[in-house]
């Protein structure tokens, strides 16, 4: 069915026309979103894809009337059943919210009021939209909890959010959104904060209810894998503009706009980077863990018992120079604890950490200190891991200076490394807030390299980055690793990323290693049931971004080199055969 036929038969459920939202002064661009036009039909899933700052959530918020006060739509309309949502009085908009248009948010951990039971929170939707009979409301709450697949609705109704896991909370949020059977569901990155297996379940749930209820769904995401799994139609946004829209089939397999092509090329594909060289393994290992254990004890005092959580159990591994070892697991698997133990930010309970053959586990902090500079860490959050009050130069040189290197020498080294990680030498005198997330992560990498480490621990170092930036940082890490022949432990929740950069992988669950081996083997022929489940849960399995890119490279289309002027493609002008 093409657009024109559809327009003749029935009007779209929601139609956004030339919507522009102006940014306050002092931003890098004038409009948050500019000239956005799209339709949503009943019973379709429309994915809005883009990187951070692309304005992809902005239309969603505008539809809900939830824009921050500083942001005002200056042009255009959002028409829903003949009414323009932008000009509707607040009280009428409130009446629509929750009843006709509902929303699911990104962070299930913070999207629920911590002081109300989940039952009360679902109940509230019904109450504020005029259902006064508490018996009817209770029945509906139980129905909804059951419908979104939560166990024992009668019990879980009285639970507070903190008792539930992230996935369960997201189910509660979805139940809340479904309470009054809205005709439009807006989901703003609803699975981004979840583990991959939970993500797969939530995506299934959204697809299922969308089919049963025939709702129109606007699904905002940055993940092309998710798009491949659920989208009927796709809108790609860049810097506030729609650069491409079309059916999922078109956009995913014949991307026309260079930006879309770049994004798709950057999607981690999980194709292994090639096994580890056998020659490397013949050397003495750089790091060897033997039967490492760590148990967390919290609480407990004079008169009370502590809470015990085994975080790392009987973990053994070997790492050689020039090898990258991936540690993969979901949240709570103990993978970060492992990293912290190796760098001795945490003390292990038992087991050996052999670094160059010497057991560093029993060393005191003072005795370990001379070795500390040889083992460095790259952290997850590029925003929180750099001191905002220090210049980049100070951040980089602090370590060497503390280790007795003269300042001019340290400075010279810092400038070399800034060049190595692809930053300008002028970065030296600037502050972290002047850099983007990707650039900050480069600074973080340079900082780790300042002390000439031979062991790098990268803890979720690319998780907070957009795919295109993530791809660049991964490439940088690989390059550095090859050039400097370091040993690297790469901790991640994303098997695709791990497979791409690591030689070998260990998979952890609840503190234990369930499977280990060469990356390609783990990814293509997982042995353990848990690994298989992890891999099966990766979104977009049936879609191969590499193939798409390869086929594009074979037959370069003229659109791929489109001039900036033709960037705003309109829905309807796209010809599937292009």
């Amino acid at each position, binding site marked *: 069915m093409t657009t024109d036929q559809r327009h003749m038969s029935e009007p779209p459920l929601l139609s956004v026309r030339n919507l522009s939202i102006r940014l306050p002064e002092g931003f890098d661009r004038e409009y948050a979103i500019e000239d956005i036009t799209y339709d949503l039909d009943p019973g379709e899933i429309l994915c809005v894809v883009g990187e951070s700052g692309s304005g992809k959530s902005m239309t969603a918020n505008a539809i*809900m009337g*939830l824009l921050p006060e500083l942001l005002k739509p200056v042009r255009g309309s959002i028409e829903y059943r003949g009414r323009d949502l932008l000009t509707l009085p607040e009280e009428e908009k*409130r*009446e*629509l*919210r*929750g*009843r006709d248009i*509902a*929303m699911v*948010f990104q*962070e299930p951990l*913070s*999207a*629920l*009021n*911590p*002081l*109300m039971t989940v039952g009360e929170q679902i109940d*509230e*939707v019904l109450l*504020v*939209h005029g259902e006064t009979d508490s018996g009817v409301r209770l029945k509906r709450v139980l129905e909804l909890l059951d419908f979104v697949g939560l166990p024992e609705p009668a019990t879980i109704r009285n639970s*507070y959010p*903190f008792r539930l896991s992230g996935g369960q909370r997201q189910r509660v*949020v979805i139940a*809340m*959104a479904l309470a009054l059977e809205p005709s439009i569901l807006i989901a703003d990155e609803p699975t981004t904060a979840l583990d991959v297996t939970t993500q797969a379940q939530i995506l299934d749930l959204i697809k299922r209810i969308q089919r049963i209820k025939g709702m129109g769904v606007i699904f905002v995401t940055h993940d092309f894998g998710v798009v491949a799994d659920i989208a009927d139609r796709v809108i790609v946004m860049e810097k506030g503009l729609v650069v491409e829209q079309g059916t999922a089939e078109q956009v995913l397999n014949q991307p026309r706009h260079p930006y879309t092509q770049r994004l798709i090329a950057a999607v981690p594909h999980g194709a292994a980077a090639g096994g580890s060289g056998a020659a490397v393994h013949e050397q003495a290992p750089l790091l060897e863990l033997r039967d490492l254990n760590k148990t967390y004890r919290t*609480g*407990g005092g*004079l*008169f*009370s018992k502590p*809470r015990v959580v085994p975080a790392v159990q009987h973990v053994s591994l070997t790492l050689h120079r020039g090898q990258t070892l991936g540690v993969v697991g979901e949240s709570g698997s103990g993978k970060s604890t492992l990293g912290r133990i190796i760098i001795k930010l945490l003390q292990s309970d038992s087991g050996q950490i052999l670094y160059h053959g010497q057991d560093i586990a029993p060393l005191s902090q003072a005795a370990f200190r001379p070795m500390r500079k040889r083992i460095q860490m790259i952290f997850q959050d590029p925003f929180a891991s750099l001191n905002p009050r220090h210049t980049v130069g100070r951040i980089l040189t602090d370590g060497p200076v503390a280790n007795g290197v003269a300042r001019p020498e340290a400075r010279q080294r810092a400038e070399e490394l800034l060049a190595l990680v692809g930053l300008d030498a002028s970065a030296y005198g600037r502050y972290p807030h002047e850099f983007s997330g990707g650039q900050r992560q480069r600074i973080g990498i340079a900082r780790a390299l300042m002390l000439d480490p031979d062991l790098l621990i990268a803890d979720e170092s690319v998780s907070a980055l957009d795919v295109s930036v993530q791809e660049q940082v991964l490439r940088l890490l690989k390059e550095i690793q090859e050039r400097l022949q370091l040993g690297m432990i790469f901790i991640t929740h994303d098997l695709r990323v791990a497979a791409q950069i690591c030689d070998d992988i260990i998979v952890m669950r609840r503190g234990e290693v369930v499977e280990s081996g060469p990356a390609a083997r783990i990814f293509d022929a997982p042995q353990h049931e848990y690994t298989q489940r992890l891999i099966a849960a990766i979104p977009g399995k049936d879609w191969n971004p590499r193939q798409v890119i390869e086929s594009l490279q074979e037959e370069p289309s003229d659109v791929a080199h489109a001039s900036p002027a033709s960037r705003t493609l309109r829905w309807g002008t796209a010809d599937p055969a292009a």
Partner: protein
Amino acid sequence: MMSFTLQRVMKAFVVILGVVILNFFLIKMAPGDPAVILAGEAGSGDPQFVERLRAEFGLDQPVLVQLWNYVSGVLRGDLGFSYRNQVPVLDLILDRLPATLLLTGAAFVFSLVTGILFGVLAARNRGNVLDSIITTLALIFYATPLFWIALMAVLLFSLNLGWVPPFDMETIGAGYTGWRRALDIAHHMILPVVTLGLFYTAIYTRLTRASMLEVMGLDFVKTARAKGVPKRRIIRRHVLRNAILPVFTFASMQAGQLVGGAILTETVFAWPGIGRLMFDALMQRDYPVLLGVFLVTAIVVVAINFIADLLYRFVDPRIAIA
């Protein structure tokens, strides 16, 4: 729950015993011999008379024996005997306690109610004139010393305007009873309560305002808006309930001062409470009374903390019983 309560009671007991012992030694270290002062006031410097006073109060015994006598007395409920007033300390304290609790309790309620009210008003009208007025006043009362406010209030409202009585707890010699008396006390309470409460009102206002503004920016408030919850209900059910938690923490600190925190106010307004009892005892080296007041204060602090911890579990369900 039971084992938690039991644990806490045991801990509280240990803490209070520690306080008793510590206080005892503190007092022993203070310069000045009560017997000498008493004898001096009686107009006699006769060493024999002083010795007799010492023996009478047990001050001639070794310190550890005195400690044992005191602690075992406390455990039996005997807080000792006032040197000066010649009555049991416990009677003195029980006599004064209601007046203090009435004053501090009323001030507590006053500052909580007004503080939260102003805080909510300021937060809801953020950036408006009302917000500016409230935050400015809060800053002024937060920064101004209590006794100065007390004196100025007496000057203005009692002496110049004559609206409220300047001191005492009730009209002396009027012999009111029943409701008439309650009204008379209430009238006398206005100035001291407001004076004592204003500082905390200012703190609660600022705390509530800041905390409300913070909570308003949280995700679940957006969820509530997306659900179509009306604004008033969002403020009440979602924002205020969460914003009240830090206020609650601070309120439990104020509640801990229910007995010991009104010395200044009681002195300025001639309020016949514990604060003044303590002040007088200090001036007169009436150490058993002083120790008694310390003990009661400590007990109240520990008890309030205990109650606050219990209440926390109701206010915030995330705090589970360990």
